[in-house]
């Protein structure tokens, strides 16, 4: 085995097998410091890569994966989320968006109420125009000429009211 042969073997052979004592490659390495250094560097890097790969894990508990899968399967109206759509992060964003939605609804209600009552001051409290986060089934009062949509979230304590 020449140095060229040895490097060819090192390039694509299974090092665990190729470097076993008694193989032609092992015998060459025993007498060639340069090739031995190359083999040692490769083996160390491959070992590091193996450690990194095996250490990869998810922070999502198995129970969470399972519960989401079972919940999705029980929802017959939709298929599984397409790959590339962030199911995990979507959940996080949903919770961030709910208070934003509520705030936006409140702003809309304030603007709507102000426009409607311009020049006609009213003593009616603003709170009457926009319902605070409501329990399902609670009536939402809106100014005349306006409509409201109530979005119910998965959290029964949080609903989003959109007045337009």
């Amino acid at each position, binding site marked *: 085995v020449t140095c060229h042969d040895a490097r060819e073997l090192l390039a*694509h052979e299974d090092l665990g097998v190729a470097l076993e004592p008694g193989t032609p490659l092992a015998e060459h390495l025993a007498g060639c410091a340069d090739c031995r250094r190359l083999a040692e*560097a490769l083996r160390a890097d491959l070992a590091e890569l193996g450690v990194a790969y095996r*250490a*990869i894990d998810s922070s999502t508990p198995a129970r969470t*994966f399972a519960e989401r899968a079972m919940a999705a399967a029980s929802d017959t109206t939709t298929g599984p989320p397409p*790959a590339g759509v962030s199911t995990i*992060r979507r959940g996080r964003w949903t919770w961030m968006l709910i208070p934003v939605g509520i705030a936006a609804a409140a702003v809309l209600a304030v603007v709507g109420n102000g426009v409607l009552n311009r020049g006609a001051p009213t003593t009616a409290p603003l709170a009457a125009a926009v319902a605070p986060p409501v329990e399902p089934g609670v009536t939402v009062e809106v100014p005349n000429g306006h409509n409201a949509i109530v979005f119910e979230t998965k959290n029964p304590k949080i609903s989003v009211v959109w007045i337009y």
Partner: protein
Amino acid sequence: MTDDAISDLVARAAAGNAEAFTELVRRHRATVVRWGAALTGDLDDADDVAQTVWIKAYRNLGSYRGESSFSTWLFRITWNTGTEWRRTRQRRSERLAAWQGANPPNAEPPPDAAEVDRRLVDTVRSLLGDLPPRQRMVFVLSDLEGRAPVEIAEMLELSAVTVRANLFKARRAMRARLLQRAPELVREYRS
């Protein structure tokens, strides 16, 4: 765990036993996430792929006949999901690039990923990232998971010869990449 025990879990999970399904997920969770990380190069994306895999697996448990091992069956779902993910990501990148008039941004690690996990995935991604997906997975399954070419052939639905050819190319590319970290060795390697 024996194949019989896994088959029993699968049967109970397919019948709607939540604990059995959770146990199946627990036993294969890390493996599926690693496959996802190898396919996507990102831990959050790997989590997303894994979630989709478990949804598909749960819906299709009834079709698992035990003709292959459960992990092989699960790998097929992961591979198909990862392929779909890559296509979706590619289309999005192309649209974004066209819209921005710039090169598509590479998948940056999300800011909320744990630093340690991110480094691990970065290491794997930096070394595996440029390999074609099939070569990458052959390399992962063979040299990082220690699976035999025959098993890999079944998992990827390839012939054993094709697996070996892919492994040959993947190792060659990988080892050249590894040696780029040490320029003096690269010179020797090329000499």
